[in-house]
C-alpha cells in the first residue's frame, strides 16, 4: 500500500463516517417509524452535522484513535482495505476517489442548474388583471398568519409558483397558475409557499448550498442536503394545512402544477442530460407521488420523547463511529 497523506487519510475517514452516520440515522428513522417531516428533518440534521462538528471533534479530542493498537481493536479500520487490490488499485484509494468524485458530481449538477437560474435574473413583476388580483386577494384572505406576505405577480402563461429572496422573501406567482388552479387549490398552494416563507426556507437553502460547497467531496452530505430539501417540502405541506389549506386541494394543486410543468420539464444540466432526462422526470414524479400520498393520508403525528430520541441517536451514532478509524 503506497502511503497516503494524512489529510487525505482523514478526509477518507470523514467520508466513510458520514456514510455510516447517514445510514444509521435512516435505519433509526425507519425502525422508529418517524413520519412527521419535522422529526425526520431533525434526525437528518444529526447526520448532516456529523461531518461538520462531530467528526472534527472526534479527531481532535481522541488522537489515540490513530494509534495502531487502537486500530487493531476498532470495529473497522478503513486503511486495512488498502491491503486489497482491485485492477491494480487498492480499494482504500478506489473508495476515496470514487466517493470524492461522486460528491463533486452531485454538487456540480446542482451548481450548474443554479447558474442557469441566476443567469435568467430576478423575474420582473407585473400588475395583475383585475380578475386575477381579485382571485389572489380571495385566496390569501382566509390564510391565517402574521403580517401580509409579499406576493409578486408575473405575467407569464407558464404555470409557476415559488418563493425566493433572502432579504425580501416573496412568493412569485404567474398568470398561468391563476388560470390553472381553482380557488381552493390556489389557497392551498399559496399556503404552502407562505409556510416556506415563515421558515425562511430560501435563506436556509443558501446556507445549505454554502455548506455543500464546503463539503464538496462528501457525496453523503450532498444526498442528505437533497433529502432535507424534500423534507422541507413535506413540512411546508403540513404547515400549510395548519395555515388553513385543505389537504386534498393541496394534493390536487401539486398534481396540476406538476403535470403542467415538472412532468415535462426539459431542464438539462449535463452534457448527457438527454439520456438522464427520463430518469430525472420519473424521480421528480416519484417525489411528488409520495407527497400526494402523504397528503391523502391523515396528518402524521409526532412521536413521543422527541428530545430523548435525538439525544440517543446522536450519542449512539458517535459512540459507534468512535470505533471506526
Amino acid at each position, binding site marked *: 500500500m503506497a502511503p497516503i497523506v494524512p489529510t487525505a487519510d482523514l478526509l477518507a475517514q470523514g467520508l466513510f463516517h458520514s456514510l455510516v452516520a447517514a445510514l444509521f440515522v435512516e435505519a433509526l428513522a425507519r425502525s*422508529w417509524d418517524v413520519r412527521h417531516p*419535522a422529526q425526520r428533518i431533525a434526525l437528518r440534521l444529526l447526520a448532516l452535522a456529523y461531518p461538520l462538528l462531530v467528526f472534527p471533534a472526534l479527531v481532535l479530542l481522541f488522537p489515540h484513535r490513530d494509534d*495502531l493498537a487502537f486500530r487493531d481493536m476498532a470495529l473497522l479500520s478503513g486503511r486495512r482495505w488498502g491491503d486489497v487490490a482491485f485492477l491494480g488499485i487498492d480499494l482504500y484509494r478506489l473508495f476515496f476517489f470514487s466517493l470524492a468524485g461522486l460528491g463533486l458530481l452531485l454538487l456540480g449538477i446542482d451548481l450548474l442548474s443554479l447558474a442557469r437560474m441566476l443567469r435568467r435574473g430576478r423575474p420582473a413583476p407585473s400588475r395583475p388583471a383585475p380578475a386575477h388580483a381579485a382571485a389572489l386577494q380571495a385566496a390569501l384572505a382566509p390564510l391565517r398568519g402574521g403580517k401580509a406576505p409579499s406576493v409578486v405577480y408575473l405575467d407569464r402563461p407558464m404555470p409557476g409558483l415559488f418563493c425566493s429572496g433572502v432579504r425580501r422573501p416573496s412568493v412569485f406567482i404567474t398568470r398561468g397558475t391563476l388560470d390553472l388552479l381553482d380557488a381552493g387549490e390556489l389557497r392551498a398552494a399559496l399556503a404552502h409557499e407562505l409556510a416556506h416563507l415563515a421558515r425562511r426556507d430560501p435563506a436556509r437553502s443558501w446556507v445549505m448550498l454554502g455548506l455543500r460547497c464546503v463539503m464538496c467531496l462528501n457525496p453523503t452530505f450532498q444526498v442528505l442536503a437533497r433529502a432535507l430539501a424534500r423534507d422541507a417540502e413535506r413540512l411546508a405541506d403540513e404547515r400549510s394545512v395548519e395555515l388553513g389549506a385543505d389537504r386534498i386541494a393541496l394534493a390536487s394543486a401539486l398534481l396540476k402544477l406538476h403535470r403542467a410543468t415538472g412532468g415535462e420539464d426539459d431542464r438539462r444540466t449535463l452534457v448527457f442530460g438527454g439520456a438522464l432526462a427520463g430518469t430525472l422526470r420519473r424521480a421528480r414524479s416519484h417525489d411528488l407521488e409520495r407527497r400526494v400520498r402523504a397528503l391523502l393520508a391523515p396528518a402524521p403525528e*409526532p412521536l413521543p420523547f422527541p428530545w*430523548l*430520541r435525538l439525544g440517543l441517536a446522536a450519542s449512539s451514532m458517535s459512540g459507534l463511529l468512535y470505533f471506526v478509524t
Partner: protein
Amino acid sequence: MTTSTPTRVAPGPELVRLLAALGWVVAASAVMLAALGALPGWLAGEPREVRTVASIEEAERHLGAGLALPSYFPSHLGWPPGRIRISGGKGGAVELTFLDPARGGGAQLQLLHVTTPGAPLPPEFDPPGSELGSSPATVAGRPARLVRRTIGGEVWQQLSWERDGCRMVLRTRGDVEELFRIARSAHRRGAP
C-alpha cells in the same frame, strides 16, 4: 425533534419500543461494521493482527522501535523489501520479505524482528511447515539455531538468534553462507 404536541400514548411501552429499536439498529450496525472490517483480512488471507505497511519508516513508527537491518545485502535481491508486515502495535514484530527478480520475483529472503525483549515470534509470522533438521550455530558470538524446514511445500533455511534480548529470525531459500553473512551484519538503524 419538534415542538409539536406528541401523540398521547402509554410512555412505558413506547419507551421500551424506542430502546429496543435503538438497540437493534446499534447492534446491526456494529455487526455490519465489524464484518466490513474483517473482510480485507479474509480477502488477503491475513489475520486481523497483521497489517501491511508501506515503508520501513512506517513500520518503525508503528512499532515504536528501530528495526535491525543488514548492512550486507546480496545484489541479486531487490531493495526495498517487497512486502513489509507488522503484527501488534508498539513493541510488536515485523516481517520484511525480499524478492528475487531473477527467480520470477518470488520471496527469497525473510527477516523477522520482535521488538520486545523476551517476546516470542507471533504465530502469524511462523507459517506452518515441518522441520527437516536443526543444528546449533552462532551469530556474531551469540547462540543461534539453524533449522531446515518446509514452508508452502518448499525447503527454507531458518536462522534464529537474539539481539539485545529481542528475537531475530532470517529465512532464505538460497545459500546458507549468505544467510549467516546477512545475519552477522544485522544492526539497528542508526547504530554502527
